[in-house]
């Protein structure tokens, strides 16, 4: 009762009790301020361990600091090896040269197009193919999961072409569709289609049978089960498939822009390689990497927003 009163009325508490207990001096002596070395070491530590978790799952803990140091070391090594003259600029130009070239291509352009145009064309192709795959691969994958005839129809086709390298069927796509924009988008589309369809199908298979049974017992029709249970339940795997799919899209970009492209990051890299302009090659690679990474971050954000129950 008294405790309740003091909690309710903070003034009463200060009246009744002496001011804050000063921190015990002996305790401060036991814990001296950490040295610089200790602070640095703590940065790389696994983070606060759960008590009693001495034999937990392997690989737990933080790794961000280690990743940042790895990236910085590689860039530092690149800087050092080029300024010290260990390698010829033809094989590996210096970071400053690449940055200078980046600015130059951004403002003046390379191979009759600025960097914005190259990037724009490539993004149009990759995201165009991605959007096409999204509206076709996901429904087909779900259809394969819920219908044995659809599974029988599409499974051999997808499983046959999926492991083929896009470069192997590129000539065929060009013979059939010409050298225009269509063949480029179709090539990337095919690379994205298979992983996205298979993920959607796996998502359907991962639905808990209890959820389906529960819906039927509440009077759901077959279509309602597909719409309200299976589609929702498959969403985490569909999103994973989208992330894997767009990755395949970027890896196929250079192959797609090999033949008869006027602009594009892949075209720019290939063109620069022909003229041994190594700094443009490296710059192009970095730009592709950054765009792909940023899109993946966006997808991860979408995952957290759309499927917050994943992992529970």
């Amino acid at each position, binding site marked *: 009762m008294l405790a309740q009163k003091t909690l309710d009325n903070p003034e009463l508490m200060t009246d009744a009790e002496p001011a804050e207990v000063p921190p015990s001096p002996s305790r401060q002596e036991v814990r001296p301020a950490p040295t610089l070395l200790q602070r640095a070491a703590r940065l790389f530590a696994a983070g606060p361990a759960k008590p009693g978790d001495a034999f937990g799952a392997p690989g737990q803990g933080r790794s961000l600091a280690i990743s940042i140091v790895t990236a910085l070391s590689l860039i530092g090594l690149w800087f050092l090896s080029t300024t010290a003259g260990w390698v010829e600029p033809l094989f590996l130009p210096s970071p400053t040269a690449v940055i200078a070239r980046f600015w130059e291509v951004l403002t003046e352009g390379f191979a009759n197009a600025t960097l914005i145009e190259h990037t724009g064309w490539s993004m149009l192709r990759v995201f165009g193919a991605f959007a096409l795959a999204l509206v076709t691969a996901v429904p087909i994958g779900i259809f394969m999961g819920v219908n044995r005839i659809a599974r029988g129809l599409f499974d051999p086709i997808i499983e046959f072409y999926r492991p083929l390298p896009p470069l192997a069927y590129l000539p065929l796509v060009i013979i059939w569709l010409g050298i225009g924009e269509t063949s480029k988008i179709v090539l990337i589309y095919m690379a994205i289609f298979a992983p996205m369809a298979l993920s959607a199908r796996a998502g359907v298979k991962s639905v808990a049978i209890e959820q389906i049974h529960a819906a*039927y017992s*509440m*009077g759901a029709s077959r279509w309602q089960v597909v719409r*309200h249970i299976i589609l929702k339940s498959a969403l985490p795997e569909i999103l994973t498939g989208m992330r894997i799919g767009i990755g395949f899209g970027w890896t196929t970009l250079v192959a797609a822009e090999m033949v008869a492209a006027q602009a594009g990051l892949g075209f720019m890299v290939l063109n620069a390689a022909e003229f041994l302009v190594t700094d443009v090659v490296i710059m192009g690679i970095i730009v592709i990497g950054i765009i792909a990474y940023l899109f993946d971050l966006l997808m991860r954000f979408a995952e957290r927003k759309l499927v917050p129950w994943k992992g*529970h």
Partner: protein
Amino acid sequence: MSRLQIHDVSVVYPGLNNGEEVHALSHINFAIEPGEFVVALGASGCGKTTLLSLMAGFISPSDGYLTLGDNPVSGLPRVACGVDLHDQIAGPGKERGVVFQKHALLPWLNVIENTEFGLKLQGIPRSERRERAASFLKLVGLEDFHQHPVYQLSGGMQQRVGIARALTNDPEMLLLDEPLGALDALTREVLQELLLDVWKQTRKMMFFITHSVEEALFMASRLIIMSPRPGRITHEFKLDFNERFLECRDARKVKSLPEFIEMREKVLSIIHGDEQSGGMH
């Protein structure tokens, strides 16, 4: 009020690798009367869950058929109850609600959306289904958790949502497949009492599966004990411990009555007999 009737039902699964056929259930004749709380108890593999799946309509019998009142549940009888049911398609239906052990809630919906899900499927307007769902959430003690994501709830609270969801659909009977099997002992006792209260208020037919002898004796108006190979009902007991609890509201007192303990030992010895013969297999 209609009764659930099981007419000479057998379920036979083909054996693995051309082995012998598995008789999951053999010639079951059994009925659940309106307002009855029937509990099925038995060793693993005795066909309890198969029986529940039949009643729910998730599987069809190899032989025989089931009816709820005049309506077919599953199986294709030629004539039953004077009605020609031949070729009628049956299966799961909203008049037979099911509560599962786990994994049956929909994690993308919050507590009240899960509870009203069945009404949404039937196209009932939002305000009406909200109201009905809220009244059953209150019945299971979750009136303050409407907007909570279900995947953040404890196991006991998830089962409360499952029970409220089944009740909101206003079924004629509830089929409960080990609904308390994954809970800790304390939560389990709390929910046993909750289920008896729900039964008292609604007097719906209940079919409840459990592995716990004490739970079975405490909950059942009628206890059936099943035995494996082939799955069949070997014993039946009429009990009234649930009514005694609803009168005195003291579960520990009911569970320590001399006749409760005597019954518990009797049922345990029956089941142990089964498990020993099963162990020889």
